[in-house]
């Protein structure tokens, strides 16, 4: 056992007595299908059932999603997520108000799973969740930011699990993205209001549950996949960026695009550079989700 500056960490890296964000504090937004902060007393997700379009909130049993109650509510049909609640305490909930664009949690009476644990399935056609206030939190010049995401890509198509962007501007080109995929690479980039872009990429895409982290003090960016460094302090200094939204599952500009085709279980966003603690944080998530890398 190691006594770290971030709490007591087990020899395997897992937290013994506290949840993930009890140890790694200060997140701006935190979405998970597990309970990840002890002080959070709200629900996990709100679900619409296909049988009659009724909606209901669902929370946790211990620290796991209350799947039994969701299955009872949805029955043999499909269950779609209208709201993924923010566990950070800041109430930056992710929502989708259009029925046909809501990600799925129940598919024909069965929980959607990734590595045997509940996951949201985005169809890669038009599904996404969005918060229209959180993006402005990260607007400006070289704002520090760190993002942790647990994804499962399904196919090689332009696919964005998380983006920050601005809707309906004259250029519509501002965005900040961490580790999406195109047809052959993972990519990360920033683009400013006038279209100046700093884009970086790495290979090779695979199609299993995977943990992506990105840390940035503002002008440089480092990304990691499954605990392995992929981009190290690459230049992302493009000056001032105007942002309004943070979107899960798409890039929301004048026209939403680059829809995520895959599954998602956890996304945590910090307005700070978390490079110094990213490795133990990754190891805790690895343990929580029984990942094998």
């Amino acid at each position, binding site marked *: 056992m190691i006594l770290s500056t971030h709490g007591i960490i087990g020899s395997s890296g897992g937290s013994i007595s506290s949840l993930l964000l009890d140890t790694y504090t200060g997140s701006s937004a935190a979405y998970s299908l597990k309970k990840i902060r002890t002080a959070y007393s709200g629900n996990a997700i709100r679900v619409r059932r296909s049988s009659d*379009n009724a909606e209901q909130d669902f929370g946790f049993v211990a620290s796991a999603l209350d799947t039994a109650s969701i299955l009872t509510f949805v029955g043999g049909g499909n269950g779609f997520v209208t709201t993924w609640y923010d566990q950070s305490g800041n109430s930056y909930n992710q929502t989708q108000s*259009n029925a046909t*664009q809501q990600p799925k949690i129940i598919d024909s009476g069965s929980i959607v799973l990734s590595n045997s644990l509940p996951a949201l399935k985005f169809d890669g056609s038009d599904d996404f969740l969005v918060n229209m206030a959180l993006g402005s939190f990260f607007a400006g010049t070289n704002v520090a930011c760190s993002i942790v995401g647990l994804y499962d890509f399904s196919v090689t198509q*332009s696919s*964005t699990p998380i983006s920050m962007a601005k809707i309906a501007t004259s250029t519509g080109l501002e965005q900040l993205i961490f580790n*999406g995929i195109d047809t052959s690479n993972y990519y990360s980039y920033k683009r400013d209001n006038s279209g100046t*872009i700093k884009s970086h990429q790495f290979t090779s895409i695979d199609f299993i549950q995977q943990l992506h982290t990105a840390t940035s003090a503002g002008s440089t960016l480092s990304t990691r996949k499954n605990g392995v460094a992929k981009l190290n302090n690459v230049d992302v200094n493009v000056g001032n960026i105007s942002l309004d939204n943070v979107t899960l599952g798409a890039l929301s500009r*004048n*026209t*939403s695009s680059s829809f995520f085709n895959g599954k998602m279980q956890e996304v945590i966003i910090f307005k700070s550079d978390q490079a110094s603690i990213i490795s133990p944080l990754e190891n805790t998530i690895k343990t929580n989700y029984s990942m094998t890398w």
Partner: protein
Amino acid sequence: MVGYIFNTIEEAIDAQNLCDTANGYPKNDSVTKNWVSYQFSNLDNFYFITFDESIREILGEPLIFDVTYEAFN
């Protein structure tokens, strides 16, 4: 893209309303406000609704058309 194209926002809203009515929207105390959304393609200058099997009987057979997206990386 498989879906439906509209020249004006009024036509797109009318189609959205048809889908809402057929599926019982609007509902009270519901996060879901509409059955489908429409989008404006800035570079093509038209409105469109992405196809979903649930709206075939409401809006008819969909079209196949191209939407020009802004560069993403």
